[in-house]
């Protein structure tokens, strides 16, 4: 299970960006079990990279290859399977269903391809300190709470790669560490890789490779 980036560059980036970047216009291969840290200042294309890897957008030159299949050739159905079984993501902007409660938001993901039994939702929510929020509509939860919902949601499915796009932007140090710990355990359980993009280095993420975007 490998995720390959071949000369990847967003089409809306000019040449200045590729100089000095350790990711854009490079050939990179990420394998299962690796912890990849991508440090990226604002506007360097961090979210673009995550969206490209997740198959949400394709305004890039170069290729992204998963298991020797080019994402460019994926159909809508292929992407559904890719996101359901192989790659999970925590978005910077959370992307929850505002009118559904916390439990429903997580269950919608879990039922698609359950890696954990339904009881695990409550267990994880309690571990991240949102156990009492399960019945609340997600739109009335704070950003910090929503971020934790998004993290738990990402951990409900099987995956080979877990993509994290500034997952702790609304969390304090303690909550972030707590969530990171949970994600590391879950990744280990699946022998999965984590690709973690953030503004700066974070000490409690034991990365095996480091890139500057």
């Amino acid at each position, binding site marked *: 299970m490998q995720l390959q980036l071949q000369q990847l560059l967003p089409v809306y980036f000019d040449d200045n960006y590729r100089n000095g970047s350790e990711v854009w216009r490079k050939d990179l291969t990420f394998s299962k079990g690796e912890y990849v840290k991508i440090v990226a200042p604002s506007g360097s294309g961090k979210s673009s990279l995550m969206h490209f890897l997740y198959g949400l957008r394709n305004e890039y030159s170069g290729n992204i290859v998963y298991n020797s299949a080019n994402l460019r050739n994926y159909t809508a159905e292929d992407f559904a399977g890719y*996101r359901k079984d192989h790659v999970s993501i925590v978005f910077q902007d959370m992307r929850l269903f505002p009118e559904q409660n916390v439990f*429903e938001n997580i269950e919608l993901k879990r039922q698609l391809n359950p890696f954990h039994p339904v009881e695990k939702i409550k267990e994880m929510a309690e571990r991240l300190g949102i156990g009492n929020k399960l019945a609340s509509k997600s739109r009335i939860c704070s950003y910090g709470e929503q971020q934790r919902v998004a993290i738990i949601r990402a951990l409900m499915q099987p995956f080979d790669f877990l993509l994290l796009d500034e997952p702790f932007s609304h969390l304090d140090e303690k909550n972030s560490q707590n969530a990171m710990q949970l994600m590391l355990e879950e990744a280990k359980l699946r022998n999965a890789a984590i690709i973690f993009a953030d503004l700066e280095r974070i000490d409690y993420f034991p990365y095996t490779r480091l890139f500057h975007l």
Partner: protein
Amino acid sequence: MAVSFKPIRSLLQTGTNTSSRWFSYIGLGIGVLLLLCSIQMFINIQQLLGGEDQRKEGYDFISISKTITNETMGQLEKNLFNENDIKDISTQPFIQGASPLVANRFRVQLSAGDIIPFSTDMFLESLDNSFIDTVPPNFTWKEGQDYIPIVFSSDFLEIYNVFAPGYGLPQLSEATASQVVVYITCFGENGVKQTFRGSIVALSDRVNSIIVPKNFLDWANNKFGNTTNVRASRLYIKTKDANNPDFLSYLQQKNYKVNKDKTKFGRVKQVLQGIFSGLGIFGLLVVILALMLFSFYLQLMIARSKDNLQLLLLMGYSPNWLSKNVSKQFIPVYILVVLAALAFTESMQWAFHHFAMFDRPELSSLLHWSVLATALFLIGLSLITNYRMVRKLLYKLV
């Protein structure tokens, strides 16, 4: 592991446009009802007026003539059938044969000899034997033969018997009439004349005329009248069903005159079928309009739930699975709407059969299978259009 659609249902926002959804359901129901009722009534008319009753030989024979109007009066070529007319009529699919009634083109006088002191100018006509209902074996003539067999209209005999007493003539039974020998004198130009003996060999209920063998009249027309042109004022037509609307509209279009009594059912049927075809087409239009309204409703629903649906697709829900399940939501409603219309149609048919037609055996209180087939087809049609619509809209969100 089957993914449940239940938690997703609440993500489809259907709340505020309930009225447009109900309008489209009601519209669909009314359209389907109209369509099914029209089909059933169309079939009822076929069964009631379809001429299913067995005629003797399975054919109707009727005579037609051109309508003589003030404009065509005196113009023989416009009032007579020429060979092209006959050819055109014979090639129509609903006409199995046509034969002209050829009349004499010379003066003919008939007298009854000494037995009945009766003499009159009259006419003779000839017709293909296959169009005459009663053709005895001796209805033949050879050149040189001075005896002419005659097929006589039974109506004419009746008319004779009506006026005979007033003129001091004996009334004749059918049997006696065929024993009377009459003398037929043909007058040609320049004082040429020839007298033949004749007798009635058969009476015909079908043909209102005095029929002689065809070869005799052709020969006589040539000899006394100097013409071999086939121009007939009347045509006999052999048709499977004189009430066939196509046949009637052909006659109307050509401005041919026909015995109205023989085709009266056909005319009623023509009008009724026209009405119900119109209603059926209207029903179909309503169905199409309702489906269009429903597709607008679907578009609106999907547009309103766009964010939610996009997020589901983003989470890894298959667009194919989603389209199937979103459109599945409407299956029960569609089936219910069509079944309700079907039930209404059935009760209409029962009431029509029982109260209006007094349980006539030609009809059935149950719906015709084609109505059920149409109902099934409509369910299928709405489901397919619905599914395709949802699928198209959802794939746009991917």
